[in-house]
């Protein structure tokens, strides 16, 4: 769906306050993990931002740092071994990394909520879903147990769980995978947060259910005008719902672009590789493209561009110099708003 379509249904921004910048802005974020074998640099200077009502898709393989960035935003990184040596995470202009634990706790769940990949293990197995949903209202709004239960039923209706009233006392293992993920979504939505981070919300689901869950998420996002960070490795999921995309590799953003432009004209060989490895009906019978090599070892990231050992176009320059994330322009130098690439040869990639 296009952005134009979206703005038509957008209600007035909620409690935007006096802050005029983006809802969330990540600036030069670094995250490293101290392990027995050395320091793993999981995130190496990531910048991105999300506005209210906007969907940012963060794309990357496992180990690209996409989930770690999200966990840093959420404040659920295991520290130690995790550490944030530098960077800022501005929520409504305020750096969350400088807040007290209690201030951050009050933002979690209420202002920023998260949807996890595996709903079965992410929900507490010994507490009823009604209890786990109602807990949000009891803790953050001081509602009574009874009122919280009513709210929980309301939420379950909202995410289209059939017979919500009868099932509110059921336990997570009694639901199907799709229904469980709906409960995760309901939990994230409970307090109508400004921003939702969805970490591979559909990866664990059947293909048929994936679309339903994604549609529900997109629909609710529009309804509440929330910002959404969608973390995924699945290009198919992204195309329908995202406004813009950030592609991550080895802890850095290697390309940033509005969604359709990225698909039409990738400006980084890694993105190109990802797109080429999607099976296509019109190329039936041909050998499927695959990016050669393995994702980098975060303990020993290659020098220069981290992608160089796997890149078909790599030169000596790529092996020594780290390319900066720089604006991408048309051939005539005209601006391409929102587009950036971290490749020495972006021109050749996008126009070649």
């Amino acid at each position, binding site marked *: 769906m296009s952005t134009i379509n979206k703005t038509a249904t957008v209600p007035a921004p909620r409690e935007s306050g006096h802050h005029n910048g983006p809802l969330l802005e990540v600036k030069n974020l670094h995250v490293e993990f101290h392990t027995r074998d050395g320091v793993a640099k999981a995130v190496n200077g990531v910048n991105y931002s999300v506005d209210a009502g906007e969907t940012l898709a963060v794309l990357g393989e496992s180990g690209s740092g996409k989930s770690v960035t999200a966990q840093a935003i*959420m404040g659920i990184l295991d520290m130690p071994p995790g550490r944030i040596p530098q960077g800022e995470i501005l929520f409504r202009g305020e750096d969350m990394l400088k807040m007290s634990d209690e201030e951050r706790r009050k933002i979690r769940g209420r202002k920023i909520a998260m949807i996890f990949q595996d709903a079965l293990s992410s929900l507490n197995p*010994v507490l009823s879903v009604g209890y786990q949903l109602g807990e949000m209202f009891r803790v953050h709004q001081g509602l009574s147990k009874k009122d919280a239960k009513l709210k929980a039923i309301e939420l379950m209706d909202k995410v289209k769980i059939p017979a919500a009233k009868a099932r509110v006392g059921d336990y997570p293992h009694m639901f199907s995978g799709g229904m469980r993920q709906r409960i995760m979504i309901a939990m994230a939505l409970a307090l109508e947060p400004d921003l939702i981070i969805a970490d591979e919300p559909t990866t664990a689901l059947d293909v048929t259910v994936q679309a339903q869950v994604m549609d529900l998420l997109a629909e609710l996002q529009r309804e509440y005008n929330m910002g959404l960070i969608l973390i995924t490795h699945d290009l198919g999921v992204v195309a329908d719902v995202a406004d813009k995309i950030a592609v991550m590799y080895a802890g850095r953003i290697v390309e940033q672009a509005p969604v359709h432009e990225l698909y039409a004209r990738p400006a980084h060989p890694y993105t190109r590789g990802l797109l080429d490895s999607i099976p296509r009906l019109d190329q039936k019978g041909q050998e499927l493209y695959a990016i050669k090599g393995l994702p980098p070892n975060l303990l020993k990231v290659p020098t220069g561009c981290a992608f160089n050992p796997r890149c078909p176009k790599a030169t000596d320059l790529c092996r020594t110099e780290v390319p900066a994330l720089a604006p991408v322009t048309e051939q005539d130098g005209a601006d391409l708003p929102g587009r950036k690439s971290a490749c020495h040869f972006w021109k050749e990639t996008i126009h070649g």
Partner: protein
Amino acid sequence: MGRYVVRRLLQMIPVFIGSTFLIFSMMYALPGDPVRALMGDQSFDPERLASIRAELGLDKPLLLQYASYLGNLLQGDFGTEIVSGRPVADIIAAAFPVTIQLTIFAFTFTVLVGVGLGVVAGLRPNSIRDRGLLTLTLVLISMPSFVLGFLMQYLFAFQFELTTATVPEDPAITDMMLPAIVLGSLSLAYVARLTRTSMAENLRADYMRTAVAKGLPRRRIVGVHLMRNSMIPVVTFLGTDIGTLMTGAIVTEGIFNVKGVGGAIYEALFRREGATVVGIASLIILVYLLTSLLVDLLYAVLDPRIRYA
């Protein structure tokens, strides 16, 4: 659930019969003979011996003896001691309350201190306090209760003179403290280790991360989300532990001279009073079987994933 309980109770019957029969048959294989003991050193008359044995039913086959014993037991008749002529029920009535009191003390001590230590250590796995606890419990486990018992007796009664070495005839609650601690210490070590391991494992669970992401206060995350899950194996252990504590009392009661079941069974064993040994053993086995059923039911309450068909 109701059907499950009934089925479990029915399954318990053969186990109860089997276990008590084992003890019964071992008692009757004992080399000593209470009837001869009854006659003391007087001139020994085989005919009289045989007639007494017949009178007591001791000449019948073992299975028949056991069947009639079980039949009497069902009517609440535990039999009588051969030598003293005392009804076994009287002996049990005198000894059981004492041991139950001791067991309850020991159990309370085990739960409070064991779970407490386990939580303290489990919240910080591999910290100094965690390693300290693991070492302490290892030392506790490696001390058989008679070793710990004498150590405590020596320290508290003889060195510091805080208590008397043995428990007086009509014990006050404070007199039972030391025996209860000795009796409970081994279980305490297991409970602490189990709690610790369980907490440390659950601490890494995905739902804990969710609880943090929900913005719950730490007290709630630990108290509700972590504890509910971590206590499941501990409760299982504690249930089976009650029966264990009751037999452990044999040693503890001996050291501190407590007039409970342990002392009664030990004494009866040496006087070859089969009825007393089997009677007390049957009761202990019954307590043990019932508590393990109770634990299984509690398990279902704590863990909704367990379903009983």
